[in-house]
């Protein structure tokens, strides 16, 4: 697996003060693979996700995405800001609270990465941005400001903004947790569409039914360690560990939270 894997994480450690958030985490994501990270809050799943694009700098271990590899820990030099920025430009990230730029229109939000980071000409960036907005079904909202959009629309713009960087990998940090229940579906549809197009993705989520549907692998974390890992359906339907069973017991497995197919 390690030869074809797109993301490879080895021995990852991170602590915030005295709180050890990640304890020796290993993770592989195949090219085009979709991995769902689940677990109770405080389990370290969001921190792990943020270590993949080095938004959080690990204390030890190694992170590889594509052919770029970073080693952390004793004696290892921390990458400088330029190297970090270049690395992050190849991964897209979607946040729980959208983090759209409120002083820019939807179109400008999506153009921002290509123009500022990729130094693309404005006209080309606009073509690209409009295409990405159309892809998430929001072409007609191009000239509106984020404040005028619904939560689901905001999150779809945030996905378009990340996609405009044409990343190899997409990271979703509880992308639907801040949404009203009736708006969750439209965002999950977009994520599912990306999965079907072969995008490599790591998804931190509480949508168990969705994870079962879309992810090919599932990782259950608790207290900074991987408790159980395996094919998504297998882990959800027949968990081996008692902790996994207890966690999954909180969810109604039949209450299909996600639509099974894209409506388009």
């Amino acid at each position, binding site marked *: 697996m390690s030869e074809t894997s797109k993301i490879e994480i080895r021995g990852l450690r991170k602590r915030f003060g005295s709180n050890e958030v990640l304890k020796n985490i290993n993770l592989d994501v195949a090219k085009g693979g979709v991995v769902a990270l689940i677990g109770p809050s405080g389990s370290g799943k969001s921190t792990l996700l943020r270590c993949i*694009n080095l*938004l959080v700098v690990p204390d030890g271990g190694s992170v590889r995405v594509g052919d770029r590899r970073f080693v952390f820990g004793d004696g290892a030099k921390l990458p400088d*800001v*330029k190297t*970090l*920025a*270049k*690395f*992050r*430009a*190849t*991964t*897209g*990230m979607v*946040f729980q*609270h959208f*983090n*759209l*730029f*409120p*002083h820019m229109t939807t179109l400008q939000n999506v153009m*921002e*990465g290509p123009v*500022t*980071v990729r130094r693309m000409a404005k006209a080309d960036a606009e073509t690209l941005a409009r295409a990405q907005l159309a892809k998430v079904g929001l072409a007609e909202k191009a000239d509106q400001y984020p404040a005028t959009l619904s939560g689901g629309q905001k999150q779809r713009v*945030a996905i378009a*903004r*990340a996609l405009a*960087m044409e990343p190899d990998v997409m990271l979703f940090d509880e992308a639907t947790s801040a949404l009203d229940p009736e708006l969750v579906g439209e965002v999950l549809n977009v994520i599912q569409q990306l999965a079907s197009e072969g995008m490599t993705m790591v998804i931190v989520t509480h949508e168990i039914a969705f994870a079962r549907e879309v992810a090919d692998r599932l990782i259950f974390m608790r207290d900074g360690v991987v408790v159980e890992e395996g094919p998504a359906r297998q882990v959800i339907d027949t968990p081996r560990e008692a902790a996994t069973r207890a966690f999954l017991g909180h969810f109604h497995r039949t209450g299909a939270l996600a639509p099974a197919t894209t409506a388009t």
Partner: protein
Amino acid sequence: MYQWDFGILWSYRWLFLNGLGVTVGFTIVIVVCGLLFGLLGAFGSLSRFKEIRLLALTFIEAFRCTPLLVQLIWFYYALPILAGVEMTPIMASALALSLYGGSFYSEIIRGGIVSIDKGQSEAGAALGMTPGQSMRRIVLPQAIKRMIPALMNQSVIQFKNTSLVSVLAVPDLVYQSQVAAHDSYRPLETYTAVAIAYAAILIPLTIIVRRGEKRLAVSE
């Protein structure tokens, strides 16, 4: 009963106008320089490096926590002895007022920057921006909008603070009116007129500030 006679001031009109010109010009200089010091102080106090943070905080607190009048006198009399540089009263007072204003501007600018949600710079970083790019493109445009009312307010105070430079014989409005008051034996009329002159310039400015605040409240 005192007999008010403002007519007598007419003969000093050029003196007043001269002084007013110096006051306004001086204010422009110290606001611009003060904002530059403020920018330096704000970025310094937010620096990744501890030494720079310490330096910036020392500057801010030294000028924020000592009286302006003392600073003016100190810059004119003490600094030349310590540093061995002769300074004209105008240079000394421009420097003191700019640094004094800068210390307050620093806190306003720093406060504006840290008030922007951390998620904003994170989103910038996730797109591949350097910290500088995300500051310029994402954080500052939002922060400046929030800072403007407070910066305007501080500038209004700076305008009034220029009246203190008269102690170093800088020929501003207050200094010239002292001359006129001594010459005419009419201090009451003179200082009333000076107060009105300051207010006549500042009241329209404060109205603009208030409008700005309202517009800001609408857009948030």
